[in-house]
C-alpha cells in the first residue's frame, strides 16, 4: 500500500500524517481500519522506564604523556568503568556502583549513586571526575590520571544499551509475609501491591508485535536524541505465548539500541535508585511505525485492554526460577488502580511512566512533522516467531577436579 520511501517523500514535502500510538486508537474506532490506514502514515510510540542493561562508552582523548587505561582501572565520579579495551576507551554500565557503596549490607540498601547517575550528569553537560590508573608501557608511560572531564570535550560518548524496550513485562507481587525489595520496586507482604512496568498501548514492540518494521537499523528517539536499533536485545524471546491479536502475553522481544549521548538530554536519561536492589537508568525511547498496510495499522491500534500479561510472585517463584502465573491481567485493568489476585483486591503501581511515554510520542511526532526526522528501513529483521531463537536458562556444569 505505501512504502517507507513514499512516506519519507511526504515528510520532506511537509505532507506527512503522524499520530501517536494513543491517538490512533480513537481514530480507528471512529473511522475504521481501512480509512485510517489510507490517511495515517506514521504512528509514534514511546516508553520511559527503568532499563538496567544500559550503558555508555567514551573515548576520553589522549593525555600528555599517554596513559593506557586498557587493562588498568578507571572511575567516573567514583563509579568504576570497564577498561578492557585500547588505551582510552572505557565503558560505563548503568548499574555500576562506587566500591565503597554499602550495597545491601545495611538492608535495604539505598543505592543513591551509580553509573546511571553519571550518565545523566554527563548528558546534562556537568563536569565529572575521572580517575584512572595504568600499568605503564614504553608507548604509554603514564601511570595515573586525575582530571575533570566534560562530555563536549570527549571524542566519543555513545549510549549503547544491550537490552531496552521490553515487549511486555511481568506484574510483580509478593506472596510472603515480609516486604521485599526488587527491581520491580518495593513489594508489600501478602499481596500488598502489584507493580507493573510497560507503557502498554504506547510501548513500541507491543504496537509492532511481529517486528514487521522494527528491526536492525530502525531509527528511533533515544534519550532525547537520535538513535538506532543496533541488534535484538539480550534475552530476546519472540516465541512466548501470544494472544489472537498477535500480542505476546509475557515478556518477549527486546532491543539493543545505540545513539550519540552528546545529543541526549538529562530529562530522558534519568539515574534512579531502586531501594534494596540497585541503581538503574530510566531511558526514554520513541519508535515510529510506518503504516505500510492495514495490518500494520491493526497492530498499531491495539489498546491497553487488548494487551495481557502475567502476575508473578517475586518472593519465592521468581528468585528460584519457578514458573507459573498467578493470573493474567490486561493493562486497562492494571491502570484502573486495582486488580484481583487470588480473590484479593490489590492496588497497582506502575514503574514505567505513561505521561512520559505520551510526551516522547508527541515529541517524535513533532520531529517527523517538521521534517527533522526521516524514517529508516530496517537493514535486517529481528529474530521472529518461529525462528527458533529463544531465551534459555543457564545450565550449570560441574567443574571437574584435575587428578594429581
Amino acid at each position, binding site marked *: 500500500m505505501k512504502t517507507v520511501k513514499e512516506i519519507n517523500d511526504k515528510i520532506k514535502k511537509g505532507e506527512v500524517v503522524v499520530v501517536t500510538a494513543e491517538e490512533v486508537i480513537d481514530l480507528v474506532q471512529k473511522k475504521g481500519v481501512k480509512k485510517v490506514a489510507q490517511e495515517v502514515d506514521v504512528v509514534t510510540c514511546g516508553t520511559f522506564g527503568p532499563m538496567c542493561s544500559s550503558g555508555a562508552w567514551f573515548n576520553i582523548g589522549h593525555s600528555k604523556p599517554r596513559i593506557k587505561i586498557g587493562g588498568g582501572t578507571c572511575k567516573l565520579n567514583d563509579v568504576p568503568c570497564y577498561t578492557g579495551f585500547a588505551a582510552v576507551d572505557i565503558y560505563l554500565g548503568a548499574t555500576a556502583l562506587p566500591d565503597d557503596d554499602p550495597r545491601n549490607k545495611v538492608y535495604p540498601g539505598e543505592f543513591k549513586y551509580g553509573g546511571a547517575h553519571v550518565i545523566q550528569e554527563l548528558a546534562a553537560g556537568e563536569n565529572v571526575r575521572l580517575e584512572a590508573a595504568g600499568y605503564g608501557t614504553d608507548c604509554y608511560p603514564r601511570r595515573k590520571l586525575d582530571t575533570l572531564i566534560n562530555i563536549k570535550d570527549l571524542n566519543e560518548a555513545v549510549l549503547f544499551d544491550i537490552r531496552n524496550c521490553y515487549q511486555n513485562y511481568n506484574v510483580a507481587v509478593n506472596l510472603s509475609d515480609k516486604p521485599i525489595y526488587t527491581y520491580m520496586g518495593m513489594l508489600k507482604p501478602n499481596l500488598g501491591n502489584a507493580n507493573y512496568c510497560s507503557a502498554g498501548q504506547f510501548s513500541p514492540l507491543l504496537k509492532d508485535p511481529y517486528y514487521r518494521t522494527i528491526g536492525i537499523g530502525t531509527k528511533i528517539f533515544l534519550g532525547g536524541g537520535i538513535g538506532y536499533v543496533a541488534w535484538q536485545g539480550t534475552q530476546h524471546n519472540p516465541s512466548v505465548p501470544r494472544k489472537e491479536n498477535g500480542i505476546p502475553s509475557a515478556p518477549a522481544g527486546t532491543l539493543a539500541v545505540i545513539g550519540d549521548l552528546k545529543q541526549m538530554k538529562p530529562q530522558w536519561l534519568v539515574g534512579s*535508585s531502586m531501594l534494596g536492589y540497585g541503581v538503574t537508568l530510566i531511558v526514554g525511547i520513541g519508535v515510529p511505525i510506518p503504516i505500510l498496510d492495514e495490518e500494520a495499522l491493526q497492530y498499531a491500534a491495539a489498546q491497553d485492554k487488548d494487551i495481557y500479561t502475567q502476575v508473578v510472585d517475586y518472593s519465592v517463584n521468581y528468585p528460584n526460577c519457578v514458573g507459573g502465573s498467578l493470573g493474567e491481567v490486561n493493562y486497562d485493568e492494571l491502570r484502573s488502580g486495582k486488580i484481583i489476585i487470588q480473590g484479593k483486591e490489590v492496588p497497582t503501581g506502575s514503574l514505567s511512566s505513561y*505521561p512520559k511515554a505520551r510526551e516522547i510520542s508527541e515529541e517524535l511526532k513533532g520531529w517527523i512533522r517538521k521534517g527533522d526526522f526521516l524514517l529508516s528501513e530496517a537493514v535486517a529483521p529481528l529474530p521472529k516467531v518461529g525462528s527458533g531463537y529463544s531465551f534459555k536458562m543457564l545450565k550449570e556444569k560441574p567443574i571437574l577436579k584435575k587428578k594429581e
Partner: protein
Amino acid sequence: MVSKRIVLHFPHRLVNQPIVYKLVEEYDLQFNILKAFVTPEEEGLMVLELGGKRENFDKGVEYLQSCGVKIQPLSHDVVRNETKCTNCGVCVPICPTEAFVVDKKTRKVIFNDKKCIACELCIKICPPRAMEVHF
C-alpha cells in the same frame, strides 16, 4: 469541630515535659501521634493529628506556642520535586493514606499533601528520589 495535622518542634528545655497531656486535660482536644522523635540537636519533633472544638483547638495551639513550641502545618514537610518526578506511579500503592492519586485523564500522579502523614515510605522507594522531606 476541627482536625488538623501539625508538626510540633520542641526546644531542648521542653523535651521532657508532658505538654501534649495538657492539650487533653485543659483543652479537651483529641490527638493521634503519627510520629515522634528527638533529633541529634535534641530538639523534639512530633507529628500530631489534633482535633476538637474550634475554640479549644485555637486555645490549645496558643498554649503550645506560649510554651515555646513551634508549630508548622504538615503539608510543608513532605514535598515533591516536580522536576525530578517522572509521574511513573510506583508510589501510589505504597502510600498508606492514599495521598497519591493517578489522574484518570492525564495519567499524572497527583500528590495530595493534606492527606500526607509524613510516614516517609515514599521517600526511598521513589526511583528518581523526587519526594523530599524538609523538617
